């Protein structure tokens, strides 16, 4: 496969005569591009009632981003997490609570709630829309903190493009895009090969922080216009990754090293039929199938095999109808059904798929009583087979005070369905003291059986509280003010608060007679996140754009706060003696930084030269509980706050050649234990060749 890529790549320039015109570009201000994700219908950004950030293809290209992680980490309000791949934390909420869509269809296959964003290649992406705040009323489970929708290229004017990038750690990326666009048929293809040797930033360690990885991505999209008003489209996307693993696990002072391969495959297939009855009524039927398969095959040094499998299958059919009632009123309604199932070695049998079926319906009303005012209300109901049903309402409003000022308010409730593992996990860790974790579906039954065999030493109160899990809920309020004094300036201020209830947490429910713990899951936690965000863009002159973002964030576990207030939580002073923890020393949820900021300077000339310089800052965050209580406070272990500097520059020639070089993490900032995903200083160079339509 690799050989094929290389051959195609180097043959391209020879095969195709250079002919071409440069697509002109300007520095990107806010613009008034079309947003799809925010309210599930195409609306101009200026008419969208909820906070949205848009990242366009140009930004992705000019920062030299390869994978989704690369570009998201530079966005205001988003933080990348490490552990089980690179996840995204949105406004202080963990990766579990943000849904990731590709062209509106969800990606599945999460490990411990994290969907590894390195899975997604950026080579054919037209734009990324980030919607903050609960959007479950339109998207269902997981859209609790927000929605990230990746929209792949459509209607491109580039019939053929090939790119090659090479950088530090033998990181190579090759991509080919091809497209055919006629009146009847639109076709787009994308092929990507990515390979890295990985790196080790921990001195004297044989295990690499990022292991050698090879990834292939193939994406094919075909749209056929059957009539002027009807079209049908098909899409296939396959990502395959092979990871060479050398894992060292430290167990009670003994280090066990295993080596082997991990193979992850993500397949997505979709089909949609869109029909426009007239100017005010259209409908679309969508079918979607996706399967994520993750397989780890390891052998420990002592020769013991270790095998881990996760297979998640997700199938969905859906219809959405949009009705433009009159100039002031738009209605949409939809319904769908999902069948999904997971097979895993960590359940009672890896051969039996655990299934869930969901039927759902949603509706939304957009009403514009005044020219200056847009109101949107929506609800969705999800009926689930294996856990409690969920109801998600949403209300939002946009008020255009004048041409320069806009105020948006949105209130909504989002939910996250219990994970399959929380329902079906059947895991006993023989190595680490023999503790067990049982999902709620069988916890009581299994523990009962163990009890009859005389293996249970104690049952806690929590055992008797075990029942079918309910979804987790978040109620979010977002208030934002956009100010555009002139065509060269844009400022935005956003206030947010999310209240989360029903959080599913691991809880000890009993113990074996050996003393080993038995855990299961209960809906018990309550938490909140709140803060504000600032965004600013200022065009300094025709060639320079300065932009920046800042987020202030506070988080907390409400039960912990209650306990601190009632004087039940202790900490340790500098002398090592215990003392009561005061609320002012409480830092809230781990892995959250209070301050996060970006500053970017973009330079662009009319002859195709571009350069950019980006500074990213993140303040300290709590990582380990080290001072003898169960809460995170100022006496615990923190990762240091840090700055990272990035630059890239290049030139787009009129004959279709594009050259770019860049350097990431210029100051070589490294924190091996807390930022394993941040390699030291890296360099890259890209060459791209594209053929434009005449």
């Amino acid at each position: 496969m690799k050989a094929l890529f290389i051959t195609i790549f180097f043959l391209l320039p020879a095969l195709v005569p250079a002919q071409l015109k440069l697509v002109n570009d300007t520095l990107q201000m806010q613009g008034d591009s079309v947003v799809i994700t925010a309210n599930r219908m195409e609306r101009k950004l200026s008419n969208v009632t909820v906070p949205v950030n848009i990242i366009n293809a140009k930004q992705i290209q000019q920062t030299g981003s390869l994978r989704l992680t690369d570009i998201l980490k530079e966005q205001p309000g988003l933080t990348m997490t490490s552990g089980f791949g690179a996840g995204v934390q949105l406004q202080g909420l963990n990766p579990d609570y943000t849904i990731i869509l590709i062209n509106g269809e969800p990606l599945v296959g999460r490990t411990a709630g994290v969907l590894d964003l390195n899975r997604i290649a950026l080579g054919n992406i037209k734009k990324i829309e980030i919607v903050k705040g609960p959007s479950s009323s339109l998207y269902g489970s997981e859209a609790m903190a927000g929605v990230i929708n990746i929209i792949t290229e459509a209607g491109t004017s580039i019939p053929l493009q090939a790119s090659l990038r090479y950088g530090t750690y033998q990181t190579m990326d090759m991509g080919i895009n091809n497209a055919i666009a006629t009146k009847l048929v639109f076709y787009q293809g994308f092929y990507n090969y990515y390979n890295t040797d990985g790196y080790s930033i921990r001195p004297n360690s044989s295990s690499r922080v990022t292991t050698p990885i090879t990834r292939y991505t193939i994406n094919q999209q075909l749209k056929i216009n059957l009539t002027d008003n009807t079209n049908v489209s098909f899409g296939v996307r396959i990502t395959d990754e092979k990871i060479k693993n050398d894992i060292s696990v430290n167990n009670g002072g003994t280090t066990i090293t295993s080596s082997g391969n991990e193979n992850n495959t993500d397949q997505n297939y979709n089909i949609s039929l869109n029909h426009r009855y007239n100017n005010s009524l259209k409908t679309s039927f969508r079918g979607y199938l996706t399967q994520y398969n993750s397989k780890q095959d390891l052998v420990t040094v002592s020769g013991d095999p270790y095998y881990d499998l996760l297979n998640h299958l997700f199938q969905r059919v859906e219809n959405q109808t949009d009705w433009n009632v009159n100039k002031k009123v738009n209605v949409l309604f939809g319904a769908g059904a999902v069948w999904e199932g997971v097979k895993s070695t960590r359940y009672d049998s890896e051969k039996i798929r655990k299934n869930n079926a969901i039927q759902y319906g949603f509706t939304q009303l957009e009403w514009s009583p005044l020219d200056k005012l847009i109101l949107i209300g929506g609800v969705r109901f999800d009926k689930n087979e294996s856990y409690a049903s969920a109801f998600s309402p949403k209300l939002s409003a946009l008020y255009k005070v004048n041409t320069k000022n806009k105020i948006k308010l949105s209130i909504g409730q989002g939910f996250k369905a219990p994970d399959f593992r929380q329902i079906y996990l059947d895991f006993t860790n023989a190595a680490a003291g023999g503790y067990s974790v049982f999902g709620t579906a069988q916890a009581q039954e299994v523990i009962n059986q163990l009890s009859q065999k005389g293996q249970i030493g104690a049952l806690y109160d929590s055992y008797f509280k075990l029942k079918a899990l309910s979804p987790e809920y978040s109620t979010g309020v977002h208030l934002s003010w956009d100010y555009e004094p002139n065509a060269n300036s844009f400022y935005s201020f956003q206030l947010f608060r999310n209240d989360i209830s029903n959080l599913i947490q691991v809880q000890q429910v009993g113990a074996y007679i050996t003393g080993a713990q038995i855990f299961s899951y209960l809906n018990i936690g309550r938490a909140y996140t709140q803060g504000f965000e600032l965004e600013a863009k200022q065009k300094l002159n025709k060639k320079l754009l300065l932009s920046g973002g800042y987020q202030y964030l506070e988080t907390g576990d409400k039960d912990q706060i209650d306990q601190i207030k009632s004087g039940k939580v202790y900490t340790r002073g500098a002398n090592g003696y215990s003392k009561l923890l005061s609320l002012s020393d409480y830092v809230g949820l781990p892995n959250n930084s209070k301050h996060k900021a970006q500053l970017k300077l973009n330079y662009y000339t009319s002859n195709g030269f571009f350069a950019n310089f980006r500074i990213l800052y993140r303040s300290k965050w709590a990582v380990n509980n080290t001072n003898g209580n169960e809460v995170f406070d100022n006496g615990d272990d923190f990762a240091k706050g840090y700055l990272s500097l990035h630059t890239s520059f290049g030139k787009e020639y009129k004959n279709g050649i594009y050259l770019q070089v860049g350097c990431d993490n210029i100051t070589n900032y490294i924190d091996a234990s807390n930022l394993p995903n941040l390699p030291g200083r890296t360099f890259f160079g890209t060459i791209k060749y594209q053929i434009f339509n005449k």
Partner: protein
Amino acid sequence: MKKALQSFTLLVVILTSVVACSKDTTATVLPITAITVNDIPADTVVGLSAQGIPITNGKYTFYSLEKNAIVPNTDSASTKWDIAFMATRILTNGGTSGTGLGGAFVYTGLFDGLKTIPTDSVFKTDNAPTSYAITTGSGKGWYTYDGLNNLITPLAGRVLVIKTASGKYAKIEIISYYKGGVTLPASASDADKLNKQRYYTFRFAYQPNGSKTF
């Protein structure tokens, strides 16, 4: 105005300390001074096997709270010791562990806050290997174990209330499980985590008159 405020504050401070002093001197029971003991080894790691498994001698360190001294292992079958340490397990001289009158329970609260042992307190005795007076296990007795970073951290706000071998009372706060008296950071090397562990630093107060008041 600012000066006046400062003088007033000073006055308040002086008055408060006078009141505090007079209270102390009129107390019926003399306050027991707390003693801090550093780096008591508790079956420390002496080497590594060929397979890389840590080797220890598997022996307890016996301690007398009355004498504030380590008791030789040859006196393990006597009432000369009050508590004994081996890794995270702490024994009291009673029940299955010894011939004394010893027992203990874990009190949740501050060391200084425990002035008198509540009358309804139940002193448990060791019943090896099923249960110990000072409960073993992460989060259950005096410590938590962080498996990811391989660190033992004493729980804050826990006092081990001890009945000694001779039936007197004492209270103990464990400060650290690592040599030097400070819990190692998660980023410490594996070698440090291995070799500096199993050293207790604790403070204790011993009431020789047999009362439950400190």
